[in-house]
């Protein structure tokens, strides 16, 4: 299972995996043809990954936009089942993810715990899809003869700067966004990108419609500004403890007044609540007269 390129054994040469990005339900390479190396902690190359360009970012936004209305129109029950399905797939491939984490330097027992926590987190948000609306929407007792209610609607397309936490943080940032009906463009720029590229395969086999989650690997300084400035992106989830990173992205986001949520945590163990969903929602208030 190790991703480290093993020496040729006498009887059989292992088949190595090409790590590609996940856009619109497909696994293309970067349009730029460029690559970076994923490294083990000791600096040994483990695999080549795509070094995506700003054009890849735009293509991913197009895919996310195309998928958004359909995803938001799915019933909450259906979205919950799909998130549950992601958890099932992740559980089934836990050994692979443990190996990927271990190859990136996570201790084996911690790797197993992280995969389990990520799986449980998906389950947690699977359960919220048909509940957060009940907890957070309201019927408003206006002083006129109107039926007035406020509900939550997804922001739309949400750009996610994924955290350094390679699996638990990644899942914790994507799951609440899509649980609430958003589609996402996820930038994976941390030192351990391989769980992310493999998570694309999990998503792709979990009935998640193409374009709901788009995962790009590459460099933050090349991808974040075009994503943050993109006028067809409605919200940003910036998972970075670096105030300079979030500040510059927030300035780019002013172009179309994107909503920006910042998550500076490095430890994602306890970052789980319905507020992770509601921070990526809009409140819509509707008035209907009561009369004959």
């Amino acid at each position, binding site marked *: 299972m190790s991703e480290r390129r093993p020496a040729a054994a006498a009887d059989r040469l292992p088949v190595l995996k090409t790590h590609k990005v996940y856009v619109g339900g497909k696994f293309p390479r970067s349009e730029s043809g460029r690559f970076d190396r994923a490294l083990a902690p000791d600096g040994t190359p483990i695999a080549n990954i795509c070094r995506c360009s700003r054009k890849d970012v735009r293509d991913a936004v197009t895919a996310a936009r195309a998928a958004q209305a359909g995803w938001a129109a799915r019933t909450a029950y259906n979205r919950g089942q799909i998130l549950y399905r992601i958890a099932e797939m992740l559980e089934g491939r836990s050994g692979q993810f443990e190996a990927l984490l271990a190859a990136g330097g996570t201790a084996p027992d911690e790797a197993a715990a992280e995969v389990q926590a990520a799986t449980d987190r998906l389950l947690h948000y699977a359960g919220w899809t048909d509940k957060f609306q009940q907890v957070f929407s309201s019927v408003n007792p206006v*002083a006129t003869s109107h039926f007035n209610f406020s509900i939550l609607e997804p922001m739309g397309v949400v750009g996610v700067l994924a955290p350094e936490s390679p699996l638990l943080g990644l899942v914790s940032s994507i799951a609440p966004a899509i649980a609430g009906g958003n589609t996402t463009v996820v930038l994976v720029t941390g030192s351990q990108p391989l769980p992310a590229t493999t998570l694309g395969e999990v998503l792709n086999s979990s009935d998640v419609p193409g374009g709901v989650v788009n995962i790009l690997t590459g460099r933050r300084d090349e991808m974040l500004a075009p994503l943050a400035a993109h006028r067809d992106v409605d919200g940003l989830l910036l998972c970075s403890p670096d105030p300079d990173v979030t500040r510059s992205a*927030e300035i780019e986001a002013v172009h179309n007044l994107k909503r920006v949520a910042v998550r500076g945590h490095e430890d994602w163990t306890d970052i789980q609540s319905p507020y992770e969903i509601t921070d990526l929602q809009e*409140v819509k*208030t509707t008035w209907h007269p009561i009369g004959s």
Partner: protein
Amino acid sequence: MTESTQSTGLAAPKLRLGGADGWGYAPAPESTDHVELRDRYGLFIDGDFTDAADGRTFETANPATEEKIADVALASDADVDAAVAAARRAYEEVWSQLPPRERGKYVYRIARVLQERGRELAITESLDGGKPIRESRDVDIPLAAAHFFYYAGWADKLDYAFPGRGARPLGVAGQVIPWNFPLLMAAWKIAPAIAAGNTVVLKPAETTPLTALKLAEIIREAGLPPGVVNIVTGAGETGAAVVQHPDVDKVAFTGSTEVGKLIRRALAGSGKHYTLELGGKAANLVFEDAAVDQAVEGIVNGIFFNQGHVCCAGSRLLVQESVADEVISKLKDRMETLIVGDPLDKNTDIGAINSRAQLDKIEEYLEIGEAEGAAPFQTSCPVPERGYWCRPTLFLRASQSHRVVQEEIFGPVLAVQTFRTVDEGIAMANNTPYGLSGGVWSDKGAKAFRVTSRIRAGVLWANTYNKFDPTAPFGGYKESGIGREGGLAGLHFYLQPEAAA
């Protein structure tokens, strides 16, 4: 008025009450003798009225007469510093130490005094800002009082604001409000802020400072601890000093999208809390199955309420082709009955444009619309010689790319387009950078729900328009703003949830 007569009978002559055809209304002005206005107003800092540190003032005038009402202190950076320091001190030493129930009682007091002095405030609002007395009396002031009353009750119930979490206030809020609903916007800002335990520095608009300063008197009358509410008057520079002050924890701004973006940029990376209520270009969609007469009333209310100085105004009429001729014909007839004039006259429908600058902007758009090829229609009502006035105006045959369709005019100017299918209407409604509000007119409930759910905007009115309530969250999608005001959602923006246990 000539109508063609056919052998089959006479077309009934149109009788237009209030028009220039001899059936006008006698003037019905509101009495002003009980309203005390001073010649000079100071800044309200730390519970006292003071002159600006550098002694500067500006004039506020009556837009219906162009006559000066009073000199008002112009706050500089030093005054804003003093106001923020007072707010900080009040927050740390007094307001955050009070039992929540007692905090709520102060806010209730404000609501009650606003009601007691309601007529005085309504008249002051109409004098200073030009809005018809019917609106200031029946909408602005009662809603302002209702806002304080609603949020007062939240003060001791904050534990219920965030399910599963505790809640705590943010600290000092810096707030900047516009001139279209001066007292109501002050209420929207101050009431949730102080009920939640914050203290505030509020800057009213430079053309309409008077009701906010009367509110300061009321706050003093209500006995609020000094510094909980501070009001600094001035123009853009004063506002910039408030929102950029380093010791402000939360910024709340209502105004243009252009200025909102400047504020958002200045706040980038600061980690400060903010709400922005910005511009709009709402579509009012009239479907062929609408009750047409009601829809016409809704269109008129949507765009001509408060001279169209309304961020959520229904400034685009989208009417289904099959009923377009009927709707537009009835709309023109209804518009001809609208009375433009003295804001203090109880018959007035459309008051004065708020300022010379705003009138210039509206007139520029009237030229732009015509130059772009839309067909203008303006009513024939008389307008006073002095003051700033704009007759109700339509731009017929407007195109989606026209600036009068895409940009906020903030005046009594309605761009009219037609559509054929429901999907086309929704697409047109969503095709601007704004997303504050929208209206849907249809007697088919299922269609109304479908359309309201597909318009990307924060407030949707189905078979009504321009309704507001303190319990109903208000705020925009897209470039119409970030955050909500009103209701529990509005309270959230003056609180932060405690970290999970």
